Every structure is written in C-alpha cells, then in structure tokens.
C-alpha cells in the first residue's frame, strides 16, 4: 500500500513538471512530436529508476550524518552531507554514460531510439531534483526510494507525452504570431498544471 501511495503521489500529485517545473528545458525543447517525447520520457523513467536507489544508498551509507558508523565508531560523527550535490550529480552523469554504452552495445535498436536523448538527461533537473527530494523525504527503505524514482519518472513521461500530443494538433490552429511555439507551450503547461492541481484532492 505504502508503495502504491508513493507512486501515485510522486506521479500525479507532486508531478515533477506541473508542480515543481523540473526538467522544463528538455520538456519544452523535445515536445514537438509524440514519438520523440515517448523516447525521452522512457529514457527519463529508466535513468530515474536506476539512479534514485543508488543515490539512496549513497545517502544512507556515506553522506548522512552518522552514516559512516558501519566503518567503526570513530566515523560515527562524520557528516559528509555537504558533498551530496556533487556526489549525486557525479552518480547521475556516470550512470547516464554507462547506460549509454551498455545500450549501444547490447541493443542497437533501443540505442537508435533513446541514444540521442541520453546525454541530455544528465543535465535534466528532474533527475537531480528527484535525488534531492529523495534526500529530503527520508524514505524508510530502498524499495520506497525506487518506487519514488519510478513514480517521478512516470509523471514526467505523462507530462511530456501529453504536451507533445497537444503541440502536434495545435500546429493547425491560428495562434497569434508572437505566441507561436514557446509562448503557447508555456500557456498550455500552465493550464495542464491547473488541471493537475485537482489531484491534490486525493487523500492517500
């Protein structure tokens, strides 16, 4: 139950795009067609599911105050949390690199589909954002952290696919010149954000 709660909460209520604006840069840049949106969305889910648990382990076993106590009592008071930004981003960047190489070697077809998006992801704020929120929410175990990663990724996936679908159709509408493209995308995201606010009414 707890897992389902975390999933629904992170995917819909705390949606990365609509409530926190995380990953907006690639969200706006790569949402012109549904096909590419699905590609980038899947890549984000994948990277989040892999990096969030790794960052969780890093946080609980190394970075947190007292986390190093498994090394011996003299380390029990160490607090490395000031290093968390740099460690998280290093993990994310290297996992992305690793995933890119693995996918390229073992599944050229998937690489063809995801390949160009993977480098973009290292600097997608949704990934680092999920790591930092994970740190703040202090999940009880690694399972919850993984589900949180999955949920956040899924929420991001829905967001980008939805907006891409709208943008595909909107090409045929008469939009005032200055609002064409980015302007309209902002407005649409705002409206969708309002709709997603409705999920706040969920009691979990």
């Amino acid at each position: 139950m707890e897992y389902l709660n975390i999933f629904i909460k992170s995917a819909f209520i705390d949606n990365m795009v609509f409530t926190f604006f995380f990953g907006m840069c690639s969200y706006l840049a790569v949402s012109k067609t549904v096909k590419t949106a699905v590609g980038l969305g899947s890549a984000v889910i994948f990277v989040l599911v892999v990096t969030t648990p790794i960052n969780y382990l890093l946080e609980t076993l190394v970075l947190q105050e007292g986390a190093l106590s498994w090394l011996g009592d003299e380390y029990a008071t160490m607090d490395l949390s000031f290093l968390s930004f740099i460690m998280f981003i290093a993990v994310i960047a290297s996992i992305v690199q690793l995933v890119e190489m693995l996918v390229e070697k073992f599944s050229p077809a998937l690489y063809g589909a995801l390949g160009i998006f993977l480098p973009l992801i290292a600097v997608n704020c949704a990934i680092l954002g999920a790591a930092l929120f994970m740190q703040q929410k202090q999940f009880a175990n690694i399972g919850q952290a993984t589900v949180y990663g999955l949920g956040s990724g899924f929420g991001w996936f829905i967001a980008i696919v939805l907006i891409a679908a709208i943008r595909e159709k909107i090409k045929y509408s008469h939009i005032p010149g200055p609002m064409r493209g980015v302007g309209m995308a902002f407005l649409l995201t705002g409206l969708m954000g309002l709709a997603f606010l409705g999920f706040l009414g969920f009691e979990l």
Partner: protein
Amino acid sequence: MSEEKKSEPLFSKKNKALITNPLNSINPVTIQVLGICSALAVTVQMDNAIIMSLAVTAVLIIGNVLVSLMRNIIPGKIRIIVQLVIVAALVIIVDQVLKAYVYDVSKKLSVFVGLIITNCIIMGRLEAFALGNKSWASALDGLGNGIGYGLVLVVVAFFKEVFGSGTLTIPGLGKLTIIPESVYDMGYMDNGLMLLPPSSLFIVAVYIWVQKTRNPELIED
C-alpha cells in the same frame, strides 16, 4: 580569437552586446528556453527571486571564467563532467554560505539552490561560450545572461506577489504593503491563483507575447 587585437577596450561594442543581448533578443528564459526549472518555482516572493538571481549570476560568472581559463587544458573526453564538477563545487559553496549567513533565505530556497547545478543556462553558457572565448568576454557573457535570467524572475515575482498577497518583499526593506487596506475594505480580494505554480507559466507566456510583439523578428514560424 587570434584576430582580436590586444588593444580592444574592455567595453567595446561587441562586449557591450554580450551584456545587452541576453536581456532581450537572446534572453535565456524566454527565447532560449533555458533555466526555467528553478526560475518559476522561487517566484512567490520578490526576495527569493532576487537572491536566486544573484546566486545564479554569481555561479554563472565564476563558472564561465573558470572554464574559460581552463579551456585549453580540459580533456575533451570528460568535458561535460569537468563542467558539472566545477558548477557543482561552486553551488555547494553558495549553499554553504547561504546556510551560514542568511539562514532564513536558505530555508526557503531549500532544494532549489542545488538545482542551480542542473540549471541549463549555466551548462549551456559554459558549453556554448566559455569553452571558446577569453575570460573577460566570458565573464561579461555570464553577467549578461545572469541579468537576463534575473529580469524575468523579478517580473514574474512582482506580479505573483502583488496580485497574490498584496505585498512586495524586498531584501533589506522587509515586507511592503502595496495594496492598501482600504481597497480590501471595498471588496477586493487577493488572487489565490497567483500563489500557485501554474500562474508563473501564464506570466511568462504573457511576457513572451509582449516581448515578441515588440520584436517581430523573434517570432517562430
């Protein structure tokens, strides 16, 4: 850069353009669509927006200069990682300083300070400008983009705070009441929507509309 003459003045026309262009025709937020993640989430109060812009500008200038100084020694293969490390280190320093000296602000900005690392403006400028230009030009480019980013943040924060809570919080001056009590007595109410996340997007959309109407050459087709 070899054709550049040594005697080029510090504020030549080209260098001035490095600062002024990002304010309008290549504004990082509204035209290049970079750095929106953090831009919109910290704009409910003016003081947060101002401090966030200052933090981003500082990281941007220093990061640009550092990368520009190191542009000839950074190994090509690990370029992106080196840039990330430089930015992350700068952000940690900013975060630690905020926590130590302006604790209240750091509490409000919380995770958003960390997100400066993945603020695409910074990585974008490092990659696109600092890697190929001298340090002085890079510093100006950082300053220009920082101001361009801050400009949008301040505009958004202004509308959100004035119409959302009827106040304006300015660092050093505290919370100023903009909409007088008498207006409320006549039946005026704060617009709650302005305090919610989606309103930032609406304001930026209108900002883009106004900006592109005044500069028709920016219109996308």
